[in-house]
C-alpha cells in the first residue's frame, strides 16, 4: 500500500488523575490507506475512543497528547493550528459518535445541525445547505427525507438519529470517516440496518473508514484490517481474515474463544479470561495483559514486547511467547 491516507506514529495521550498523569494511550502506531476500512477493537477504557479524539484535537479537559504524530495529506494533525484543525474536522475527517441521543443538540432542529458542516466547510448559503441536507437524509435512507429536517432529535428513533449522524459525518464527503461505536446503543435489527448502510455508502462513495468497537463479531464482515487494543497499547494487528483464523496474541485468542456463537458446537463452560483489565493509573510495567495471561513468562512482567510480524506478512502481534520477536541486537 503506497502513501497511506493517515499515518499515526507513537501516539501517546496522558490523563491527569489524582495519582498523577496516567498514559491511557501509549505508543500507538497505525496507518490507513485510501478506501480502506480499519477496525479498532478493544474494551472500555482501552484508549480506542481517546485515540481518535486526539487526532481531531477533541480530547476532554484533563487529557493531553503526550507525544507522537499523525500525518494526513501532508500535515501533522497533532500540531495543526486551531483554524487548520477546524478545517480537518468535518471537512477531511467525518466523525460518528456512539450515543445518538446525547450527541445531538436537543434544542436545535436536526436540519440546523446537519447544515453546519456544509456552511462552514463548503461555504454554502443556508438555503442551498438545507436542500443538500434533504438529499443527505435520502442518501442515508430516512423515510420522508427533507421533511424530517424540521424534526428535533428527540422526535426521531435511535436508529434514525444514528442515520442522521452518519449523514452529518458524510456531509462534506470527507476522505476519512471515523465511527466510534456507532451501533452500541442500538438494537440488533437496527444495528444490522446501520452496518448495511455504511457498507453500501462505502461501496458508493469510496471513503476510508475507521470503525471503533468492542464487538469482535460486528467488525468481521465490515473491515479489511483489525487493530486490537489492550490497556492503551496495540497488542495485535492483522488483515481481518488472518485475525479470526489465526489470532496470535493471547488476549485476542482469549477474547475470541470466550465469545459464545450462534453456530457450531456448544460447550458447557466458556473459556473465560480471568481477572479484569487494569486501571489506567496502575498499569503493569511490562505487557499490560501479563497479569491475566495464561502463557505469561518472567519477561512479560518487566518488558513490553514490540509489535512484530507473525509468519511474515502484515499480521503483527506484541507477545514474547506467541509472536516470538527476534531478540533485539545486543
Amino acid at each position, binding site marked *: 500500500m503506497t502513501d497511506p491516507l493517515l499515518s499515526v506514529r507513537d501516539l501517546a495521550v496522558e490523563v491527569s488523575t489524582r495519582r498523577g498523569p496516567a498514559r491511557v494511550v501509549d505508543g500507538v502506531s497505525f496507518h490507513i490507506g485510501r478506501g480502506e476500512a480499519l477496525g479498532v477493537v478493544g*474494551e*472500555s477504557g482501552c484508549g480506542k475512543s481517546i485515540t481518535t479524539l486526539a487526532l481531531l484535537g477533541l480530547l476532554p479537559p484533563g487529557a493531553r497528547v503526550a507525544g507522537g504524530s499523525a500525518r494526513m495529506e501532508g500535515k501533522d494533525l497533532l500540531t495543526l493550528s486551531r483554524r487548520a484543525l477546524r478545517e480537518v474536522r468535518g471537512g477531511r475527517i467525518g466523525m460518528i459518535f456512539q450515543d445518538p441521543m446525547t450527541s445531538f443538540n436537543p434544542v436545535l432542529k436536526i436540519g440546523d445541525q446537519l447544515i453546519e458542516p456544509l456552511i462552514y466547510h463548503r461555504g454554502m448559503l443556508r438555503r442551498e445547505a438545507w436542500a443538500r441536507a434533504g438529499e443527505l437524509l435520502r442518501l442515508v435512507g430516512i*423515510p420522508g427525507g427533507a421533511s424530517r429536517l424540521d424534526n428535533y432529535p428527540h422526535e426521531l*428513533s435511535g*436508529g*434514525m438519529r444514528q442515520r442522521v449522524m452518519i449523514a452529518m459525518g458524510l456531509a462534506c464527503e470527507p476522505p476519512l470517516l471515523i465511527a466510534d461505536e456507532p451501533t452500541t446503543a442500538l*438494537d*440488533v*435489527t*437496527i*444495528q*444490522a*440496518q446501520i*452496518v*448495511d448502510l455504511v457498507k453500501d455508502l462505502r461501496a458508493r462513495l469510496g471513503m476510508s473508514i475507521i470503525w471503533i468497537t*468492542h*464487538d*469482535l*463479531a*460486528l467488525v*468481521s*464482515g*465490515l473491515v479489511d484490517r483489525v487493530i486490537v487494543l489492550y490497556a492503551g497499547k496495540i497488542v495485535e494487528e492483522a488483515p*481481518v*481474515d488472518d485475525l*479470526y483464523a489465526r489470532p496470535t496474541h493471547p*488476549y485476542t485468542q*482469549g*477474547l*475470541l474463544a*470466550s*465469545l*459464545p*456463537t*450462534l*453456530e457450531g458446537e*456448544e460447550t*458447557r*463452560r*466458556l*473459556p*473465560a*479470561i*480471568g481477572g*479484569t*483489565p487494569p486501571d489506567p493509573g496502575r498499569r503493569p510495567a511490562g505487557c499490560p495483559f501479563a497479569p*491475566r495471561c495464561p502463557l505469561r513468562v518472567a519477561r512479560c512482567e518487566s518488558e513490553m514486547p514490540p509489535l512484530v510480524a507473525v509468519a511474515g506478512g502484515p499480521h503483527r502481534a506484541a507477545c514474547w511467547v506467541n509472536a516470538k520477536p527476534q531478540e533485539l541486537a545486543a
Partner: protein
Amino acid sequence: MTLALDTRTTSRDPAVTPRGDALISIIGLSKHFHVKLGAFGQTAAEVHALDDFTLDIRRGETLSLVGESGCGKSTAGFTMLQIHKPSAGQVIYGGVDLAQLSEDRLRPYRRKLQVVFQDPYSTLNPRMTVGEAIAEPLLFHGQATRGNITEKVATLLGDVGLSPRFAMRYPHELSGGQRQRVVIARALACGPEFLVCDEAISALDVSVQAQIINLFQDLQERYGLTYLFIAHDLAVVRHISDRVAVMYLGRPAELGPKRAIFSAPLHPYTKALLSAVPEPDPARERSRKRQVLSGDVPSPLDPPPGCRFHTRCPLAVERCRREVPAWREMAPDHFVACHRVGEAIPVPDAA
C-alpha cells in the same frame, strides 16, 4: 398442520395450579404504565409495556427472554417479581397468586425470587460496604446471626469468586465485574429458588462477560437455581438457555426449546433477529445475505392492531392487520403467535 387454538391464552381461572414441573406459572400477565404527555402534561396516555403474557417456568431450567429494547422483556421480569404491580394476570408461585398479595404478605416470597440488574454501578447503595450490603438480607431474613455473619458473608463472597477482603470495600472502588459478583452474592444471600437476570452481563467488559456467564452456570448447578435470563445478545442466550421466549412490542412471539428456536425458528421476527446477529467469522459475514428488517419498532403508546409485528413483517397479509394471532403449539413445546406459520406458502428461509 391444524390450526388448533391454544386454550391457555384465554384461561383466567384463579384456581389454576402449576402443571407438573412448573416453578412459576404466569397467566395473562399485563402491565400498562400511565404517563402524561405534552408540554404541560395535559395528555394522559398508556404505555402497553406487557400484554397477555402466559408462560410456565420450570424448576431448574434457564429460560431466556429475548427481544429488542422496549419489547417488554424487562417489564415482564419486574412484573413477575411484583416489583411492578401487574395491571392484570396472575403469577402463581407455591400455590399462591403473588399478584393478589399485599406488600407485607409478599415479603416472605421475595426472598425466594431474586433479581440481578443490568447496571452494577447503580444497583449497590454507594454508602454501604460490600459486607454490609450482603449482610443486610442475611440478617433481615434470619439466615445468619450477628455471631456468624462474618463467616457467612465470606462464604458468599467465596461463592462468587471474591476474596473475603472485599467485604470492607465500597462499591465505587470495584470494577464492573466485581460489582456484579457482589450483586449476585447478595441475591444468593436470601437463599432464592428463582433468579431474574435482567441484562445482567450486557454492561460488562467483553473479557469479563464470559466469567460472569460461567459463574451463573456454576451457581445454578450448585444451588439448583431457576433462571429467567433477560438478554438481547442471542449468542449468549444460545449458550446459557434451555428454552427461549422471543418477545415483540409487549407480546410473546415465539417460545420453544433452545435448539428449535435457533435451528428452526418459526416466527418471522425470530428469523430476522437471528439473521441480524453478526458472527466473528469474516468469510461468513461477507457472503451472508441478511434479512434486514426495515423500519423501527412502533411506539408502545399506540401499538398496531392485529399482529404487532405486521408493520415490519415481510410476510404480512390483510389478516395480520386485523386479528391478534393465537398462541399455538406447532411442535411439542414449541409455541408461536403468527397467522402465517404452518400455511401452505413456504416461508422463505432467512439465514
